[in-house]
């Protein structure tokens, strides 16, 4: 089973960087909201990516309290819709002057907002792969590949101080293969999943708290 799993998993390389501009910390009763950046161009952060980070942060021995983004957007409607949401932390004070906004956020004990921006795209693909079926039987022959690049950034805003607390970026790259030798054999790289795990892990460390520093790090998965 382990050999099979290793066989069907492609190699992914990832890099994570962090920039902190303020000290952070989160109490057990405080919450974070993850919001996927949506705009009306041809790209948008996939909902599955923010769901993946949410699942990772809310699991484990030291879970962080999360408020689902749909619930948060409904509670704060119309201030967090794609065209009305604040685009920088500087706009938070204006937003908090709107009637009811500060009360609603304090009531829900939301300490941080994390805006997740980015997507996974195919940057290269090639090869030839085909499957045929006939009354005499069928099969797949050939080989194709596609290389994906997952690039995401989390901007963390502190809603107590109404300032930006820092940014974390995660980049992952991997090539998947589909080989056909009668049966199709997929060898899948999942850079989106690798970026999610790396970003969630770094975000957890970031929120738990640290001194003001600026730095970066890189790693292979």
């Amino acid at each position, binding site marked *: 089973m382990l050999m099979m799993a290793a066989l069907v998993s492609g190699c992914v390389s990832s890099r994570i960087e962090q920039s902190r501009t303020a000290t952070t910390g989160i109490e057990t009763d405080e919450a974070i909201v993850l919001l996927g950046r*949506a705009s*009306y161009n*041809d790209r*948008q952060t*996939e*909902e599955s990516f923010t769901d993946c980070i949410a699942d990772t942060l809310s699991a484990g021995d030291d879970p962080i309290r999360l408020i689902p983004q*749909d619930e948060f*957007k*409904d*509670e*704060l*409607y*119309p*201030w967090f*819709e*794609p*065209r*009305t949401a604040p685009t920088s932390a500087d706009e938070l004070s204006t937003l908090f002057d*709107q*009637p*009811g*906004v500060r009360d*609603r956020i304090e009531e829900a004990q939301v300490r941080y907002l994390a805006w997740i921006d980015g997507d996974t795209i195919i940057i290269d693909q090639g090869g030839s792969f085909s499957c045929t*079926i006939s*009354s005499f039987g069928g099969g797949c022959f050939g080989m194709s590949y596609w290389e994906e690049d997952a690039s995401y950034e989390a901007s963390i805003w502190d809603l107590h101080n109404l300032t930006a607390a820092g940014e974390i970026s995660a980049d992952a790259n991997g090539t998947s293969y589909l080989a056909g030798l009668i049966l199709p054999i997929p060898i899948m790289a999942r850079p989106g999943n690798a970026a999610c795990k790396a970003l969630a892990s770094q975000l957890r460390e970031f929120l738990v708290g640290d001194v003001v520093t600026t730095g970066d790090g890189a790693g292979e998965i």
Partner: protein
Amino acid sequence: MKTNSLCILLVLSLSGCTTSVMVEGTVPTPLVAKMPARVGLYFSPDFKSFRHEETIEQRGSYQVDMGQQNLTFFRNLMKAMFESTVEVDEPLLPSETATGIDGVIVPEILKYGFLTPAVSGLNFYSASIHYRVALFDVAGNKVGDWTLVGYGKAEGGVFSGSDALREATLLAIRDGGARIAIDLPLEPAVVDWLQQVEDASAVSGSAATPAEGGES
């Protein structure tokens, strides 16, 4: 022979494909300051039961029913935006029935459109709704009308086209509502009208005070 029959069945079922979408979702209550005015709301029969039908070549026909969701959304939106609301049967009310209100709001859907991934070449279904919102004062004079466009888009998989179109349309209603909730109170004509409503209220209040004082 069996394979051929299956293929023919598959082709027939695909060519006659109709995608029916019933738009349903949450109805958030806008967190905005209420305007100090009492308004009548006129929802036309077209607005109440808005339904879009379109046939895309080689893709089949689409039926998008958003009437009930749109109506519920606007009722809630207006209730949150104004001091009080009441639904009326006509956009222009005779003066004897226009008591207790300061104006009438008439929302309309001018146009609805959507794009599928096959048409746009993107991974999204997108929808747009062109709304027109007219405001009449209590005498039936048009204070102004404003056209706003709500946009929405949703990720669409191969087998979840109707879900994605439903989500995109729902987001377009929300987006249009957000623009109305935020922009309408800032329109100069609305600001002037609110001032007139306040002035009229002050005059009627001061006129009533001596009479009440005289009776007591």
